[in-house]
């Protein structure tokens, strides 16, 4: 019985995801992104059938656990494109250091402006970087890690919808700029989007996602305590 429960959450999520992906590949409309449609379908299913999230997650959590090796796997696109990264090192570092500071500061200041309470702000601040590391930073600065995971997802959704619009609006041409902004602004979700633009964009986005995570750790866990 337990095994059945686990496999339903796990396999069910994969099947619904594959269906959503096929639908998106056929029509390529922004609002048909599997990141929107797939959770929407699963949530409706859980609500209609009155299934607890905890029960669903018993199986589905094995997919979440793959985020760890997936982060490690980004060593391969970085290895394959090392020459390109070295050639663009100054662009990558300058834009990402600025991006990281802007990400942390703007989340904090805008949330403050909107009158959001302090504990929620702390969970909100690391929202733009990849889930496992955002959760680490959140715990470190006194936020709630699970809440942060939700904000990271909403950021991923926002970024994969807004990113292509910004690229069109600002008439961004270079693959480096497209990839870096998507990886910086919307972590893995932005990186998936970047691979839709092209191999090069995806590579820059992978680098941005990894470096943004590292830089955010340096800024929040090493530099901030020095000033506090």
């Amino acid at each position, binding site marked *: 019985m337990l095994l059945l429960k686990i496999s339903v959450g796990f396999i069910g999520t994969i099947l619904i995801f594959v269906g959503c992906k096929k639908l998106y590949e056929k029509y390529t409309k922004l609002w048909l992104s599997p990141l929107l449609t797939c959770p929407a379908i699963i949530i409706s299913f859980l609500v209609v059938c009155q299934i607890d999230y905890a029960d669903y997650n018993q199986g*589905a959590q094995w997919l979440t656990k793959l985020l760890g090796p997936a982060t490690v796997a980004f060593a391969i696109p970085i290895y394959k494109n090392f020459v390109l990264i070295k050639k663009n090192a100054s662009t990558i570092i300058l834009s990402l250091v600025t991006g990281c500071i802007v990400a942390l500061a703007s989340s904090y200041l805008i949330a403050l402006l909107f009158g959001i309470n302090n504990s929620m702000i702390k969970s909100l601040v690391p929202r733009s970087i990849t889930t496992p590391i955002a959760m680490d930073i959140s715990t470190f600065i006194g936020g709630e890690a699970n809440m942060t995971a939700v904000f990271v997802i909403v950021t991923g959704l926002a970024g994969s919808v807004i990113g292509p619009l910004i690229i069109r609006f600002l008439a961004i041409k270079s693959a480096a700029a497209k990839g870096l902004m998507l990886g910086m602004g919307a972590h893995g979700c932005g990186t998936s989007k970047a691979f839709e633009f092209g191999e090069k964009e995806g590579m820059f986005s992978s680098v941005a996602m990894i470096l943004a995570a590292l830089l955010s750790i340096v800024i929040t866990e090493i530099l901030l305590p020095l000033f506090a």
Partner: protein
Amino acid sequence: MNVLKIIVQIIIIYSFLLIGQWLATSSGLPIPGSIIGLLLLLLCLTLHIVPLQWVDLGARFLTGELLLFFIPAAVGIINYDNIIGIIGIKLIAVIFLSTIIVMTVTALIADRLTTEKRSISHASTKN
């Protein structure tokens, strides 16, 4: 056959994660295990300790299907009643505004720097 290959390669990549996590906890450094694992794998690839064919397919699967691994966390939104309503709208507004600012700033700086570099190299070839 390919499925089996992908599974074996994911296990290889996963072992780098485990080593990274072990190093992170035993050293007490504030660097997550996944990042240490990534750096170790990168080092092993560069030194040809691990050939690319050993991990290429698995890595392609993991990075290519990244969105799938976010789905259960996204479904987890149903657990947070307190971020529905006015606070929820405010939080979503903060996230959208901040994301717009971050992406715009990053894109403009990167685009400016790459076009500058291009025009400098262009100018130098002219001279």
